[in-house]
């Protein structure tokens, strides 16, 4: 008896809970509403293109060719950071599987004891001591887990995110543990880019005015130029102040090792000032930890890989890699045959290794091997 193997690509991320959208074999992960992200992209690319087309020829000739070159590098860096922030998994915590959820429920009930009927059970909170500070871990009813410290549930994406900072519509994604440094670098370099463009705009106008007089400068350029110029300066001006402000705010947060979420809730301010248990009480150490800390893996990507592998078996429910009592009997032999086809030494199962290839490709090659 052999199970029929499906070789079409199964998009398992459609079955993942939460309101994220995925592309590129699950490597790109974003929120559902992407409209403002496209606007951000349009504004940056549009403004920079105008700068390159109208300003750079003059500046390259009259000042130095290094100016447009540096602008291009800065622009590419900004786009890279934006895409990294938007497309990365922010640190989504996967929801508890049924067994884990039940286990936690039983623990909660054991801890609460007998609640007389008619009375509300006490709120589900666990207390943890971190650095001599009591931190309350709240239970998430959607994800059925006790949220780790600093995690929070994003209602827009419907996920719990680790070290949740905020949900940024401009970037089309949550900002959390895994992509905070990209977000910060994005705001920083965009501020620099805006200041750079703004400054050289002014320099250009000044230089032309010195040569030809100010009013003539406005007249002699092509008819659309003043319009571009004004739009330019206006967009630059507003972008500049908002970006510089945002960068300054996040620099302040990083130096204190706080998240926007904690700042808004006032967790470590007011009467709790100076009691942030995550801070190293040293600005340099805090900055280093946030910006040069370890690059955490995306657990969503790992769970995608595993469910894709098992999705190659024609089941309505995902068959686990290791069959248990829930696996239908006709699938067990195929899984057994799959496993025994490899050598019997200590070869770790392919699913365990972090994939560099796409999940579906690996699943398809193993199916082909089996056939």
């Amino acid at each position: 008896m052999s199970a029929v193997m499906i070789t079409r690509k199964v998009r398992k991320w459609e079955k993942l809970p939460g309101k994220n959208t995925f592309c590129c074999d699950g490597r790109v992960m974003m929120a559902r509403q992407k409209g403002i992200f496209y606007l951000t992209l349009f504004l940056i690319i549009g403004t920079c293109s105008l700068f390159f087309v109208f300003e750079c020829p003059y500046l390259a000739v009259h000042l130095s060719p290094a100016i447009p070159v540096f602008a291009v590098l800065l622009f590419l860096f900004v786009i890279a950071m934006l895409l990294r922030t938007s497309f990365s998994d922010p640190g989504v915590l996967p929801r508890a599987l049924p067994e884990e959820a039940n286990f936690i429920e039983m623990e909660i009930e054991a801890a609460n004891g007998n609640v007389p009927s008619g009375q509300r059970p006490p709120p589900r909170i666990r207390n943890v001591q971190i650095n001599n500070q009591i931190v309350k871990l709240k239970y998430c009813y959607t994800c059925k887990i006790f949220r780790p410290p600093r995690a929070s549930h994003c209602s827009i994406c419907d996920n719990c995110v680790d070290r949740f900072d905020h949900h940024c519509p401009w970037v089309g994604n949550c900002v959390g543990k895994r992509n905070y440094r990209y977000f910060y670098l994005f705001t920083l370099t965009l501020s620099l880019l805006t200041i750079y463009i703004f400054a050289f705009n002014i320099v250009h106008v000044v230089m032309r005015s010195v040569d030809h007089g100010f009013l003539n400068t406005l007249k002699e350029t092509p008819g659309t130029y003043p319009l571009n110029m004004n739009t330019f300066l206006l967009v630059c001006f507003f972008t500049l102040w908002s970006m510089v402000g945002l960068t300054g705010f996040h620099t302040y947060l990083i130096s204190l090792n706080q998240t926007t979420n904690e700042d808004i809730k006032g967790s470590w301010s007011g009467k709790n000032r100076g009691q942030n248990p995550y801070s190293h009480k040293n600005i340099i150490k805090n900055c280093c930890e946030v910006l040069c800390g370890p690059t955490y893996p995306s657990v969503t990507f790992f769970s995608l890989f595993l469910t894709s592998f098992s999705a190659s078996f024609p089941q309505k429910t995902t068959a686990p890699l290791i069959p248990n009592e829930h696996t239908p009997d006709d699938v067990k032999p195929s899984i057994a045959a799959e496993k025994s086809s490899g050598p019997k030494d200590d070869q770790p199962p392919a699913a365990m290794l972090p994939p560099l290839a796409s999940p579906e490709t690996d699943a398809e090659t193993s199916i082909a091997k089996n056939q």
Partner: protein
Amino acid sequence: SSKFHNLQDMQHTASLVTKVFIQRDYSEGTVCRFQTKFPAELDNRIERALLEQTVKTLNSYYVEAEKVGGQSYLEGCLACATAYIVFLCMETRYEKVLKKISGYIQEQNEKIYAPRGLLLTDPIERGMRVLEISVFEDRGSSGSSPSSSMSSCSTAR
């Protein structure tokens, strides 16, 4: 004991009794660390020292992965200078340690846990939240069960 000859044997023939979850230990902050408290459900299945050793070794792996020090600064600065494009070709330190961890768990399962009818699941598959231990039916010391299970396995194939 040779109740289960290897992982495949156990997976085909044994039935799952329950799953035990070892939770995260947050007393040292948000670093990845699992509690070394011994779960009561495993009292007669495995020696305390063995499980404690496994958890302690896992914790030390995670400490190594998340260490903020000279090498991580270098990695961070280099990656930043290349706009993080270098991460597309290079494996990060954390990923290297994760490979080691999965190898370690595989080895522990085969040597220690499978013979006792237990199975560890790599925490990464559970979002680094819990260390899941699947508890399979304890076959006891009767000699008939392994052979009957082997024959049922062969007919199924």
